[in-house]
């Protein structure tokens, strides 16, 4: 005959085990929901707090093959790095719109912008941005010129721009435009001048 106290102990332990198992399943489900939510979000909206500022976004236009300056009022963060990120997210937001003049793949985003003295902006794009980007010399060049020009037009002091994808250096954006190099603003201005027919 099994002692009564042993039976109670085994029953309690079994109940605890089942309870922990159910809790584990619940936690995994919750974690999966959080991840899905993060992936499907379109983090392209500037922060809601803070003052509204007038900025100039340099928007690529496929039909003309040029950039056009577009004024916008944005709520920008106070930190310089965050402001750079807000600007690029606003720009990408335009490209993700269904009536975009220069469409980007769904999920395209800028992960981070690091401002490194003296004057180097490191733009870290996500993989969806580069992997889903249309392939072609001009179409890739327009994207790069638009990112560089938007940053330099609104954040004085930026003299160089380096583009990363998912934190890593890449040879090209989508098979053509070289992003392994650090773009000097002075050189990028020549690229822009040619694009604008100046």
């Amino acid at each position: 005959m099994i002692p009564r106290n042993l039976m109670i102990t085994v029953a309690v332990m079994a109940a605890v085990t089942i309870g922990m198992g159910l809790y584990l399943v619940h936690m995994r489900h919750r974690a999966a929901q959080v991840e899905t939510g993060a992936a499907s979000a379109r983090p392209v909206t500037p922060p809601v707090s803070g003052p509204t500022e007038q900025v100039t976004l340099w928007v690529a236009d496929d039909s003309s093959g040029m950039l056009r300056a577009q004024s916008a009022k944005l709520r920008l963060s106070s930190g310089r790095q965050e402001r750079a990120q807000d600007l690029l997210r606003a720009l990408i937001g335009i490209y993700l719109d269904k009536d975009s003049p220069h469409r980007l793949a769904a999920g395209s985003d800028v992960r981070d912008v690091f401002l490194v003295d003296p004057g180097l902006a490191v733009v870290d794009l996500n993989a969806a941005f580069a992997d889903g980007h249309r392939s072609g010399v001009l179409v890739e060049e327009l994207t790069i010129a638009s990112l560089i020009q938007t940053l330099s037009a609104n954040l004085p002091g930026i003299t160089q721009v380096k583009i990363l994808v998912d934190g890593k250096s890449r040879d090209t954006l989508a098979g053509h435009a070289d992003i392994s190099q650090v773009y000097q603003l002075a050189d990028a201005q020549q690229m822009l001048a040619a694009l604008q027919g100046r």
Partner: protein
Amino acid sequence: MKHTLVIAAVVLLAWLGPEEKRISIYSNAANYSLPVLARNGQEYVGLLEVLEPLGSVTAKAEGAKWKLRYNKIQSEFTAGRKRVRIAGHDFELAANFVEENGRGLVSLASLSTLLPQFLGGPVTFHENSRRLFVGNVAVHFTAQIKGTPAALVMEFSSPVNPSIATEPGKLKMVFSHEPLVPPGAQSLTFNSSAIPSLRYDENNGAAELTVSGTVLLFAKFGNDGRTITITAAPAPQVATQTQPVIPPSVPARVPPPVENVLAPRRYFAVIDASHGGSERGAALTDQQAEKDVTLSLARRLRQELENRGLPALLVRDGDTTISLDQRASMANAAHAAIYICLHATSEGNGVRIYTALMPGVADAHGPFLTWETAQAPFRATSQSAAAGITTALERTQVPVRNLIAPLRPLTNLIAPAVGIELAPPAGDVAELSSPTYQQAICSSLAAGLASMRDKLEAGR
């Protein structure tokens, strides 16, 4: 000693290797040459590669079936079978169809009857020499002795650009890209003691003219490549064994008369069909990859340049994967007067001409150029070349833009370098592979480059 000689001979033969078999195809759209493959004891060639420069062609393998669409003609081949279906009709190949990794191979013996089913016109195949003529594309020539001292003057119906080699008593011209045909007889004799005869032969996709001479012979080009004049070398030059005089623009491989060592060919242009192999480039349509359009363009541009007496080297003449650094190294090693890389896109319309956006100025490394900024000293000439090409292309009524782009390997070139991106003429992507459109663009490009020949060649 005997063993040593035998081993040396074997090593030498192994080093030389067998000459790669090739088939040359001549048409109004393009003249090109393809490698021949040995399968089942017969000679085969890739059917897609044969048709690709002639029109819009796509192919896909579905199990044992291999479906090919040429312009609007559908066809279906079956691996290991002779019977094929073309435009709804059955047709018998001379040998079984071979499918390898999605690539369809047909025997050379099938070509003369198979190709008319697609092309709708006659083809003439010189099977022994592997030379295939699509339509009436032959280049004819006449040869006669003129003047005193005697000179053999050969007049060609189109510009030609043969490789030339001399040896005592012979001058040999090899026509790899021209649909040259014999002048009625294989052998012509002349009433001249210095140049008694001329012989025509065909071999491995090329035509050869061998001029016999009792003295060392010179070749001189004229009339934009339509005339070649063979003359006897002046006696003092023979005595000192100086090299025969050939115009610098002629890509002749002229060896010293005694040693018969071929000099490397000098190219005017290096043409780089971007992407290739596993690197497909942009997906222009569901069926069409950028790498295929760029290769077709590159072949046409080479032909157009060579028609103007400007020898051109293709970085790739097949579906091969080549890195950007390899492309730059190959182009730099060729020391050509200009490098042209070709791209294609479905976005927008017209043609864009690019020069390199140079990365920030790098530190000098003594006498060495920095790889990333090797193009810097040539940038002005590159921009001048781009402007010249733009002017030539504007005559085609196609929109042309002159741009600066961060496009490798332009930055790594030690020669004037331009990139060309071809978009459809008016937004219709299918037109990108249209032979008419490609030909018009390549012809204008070649004309623009030819007009800058002296300036570009002066820089190298």
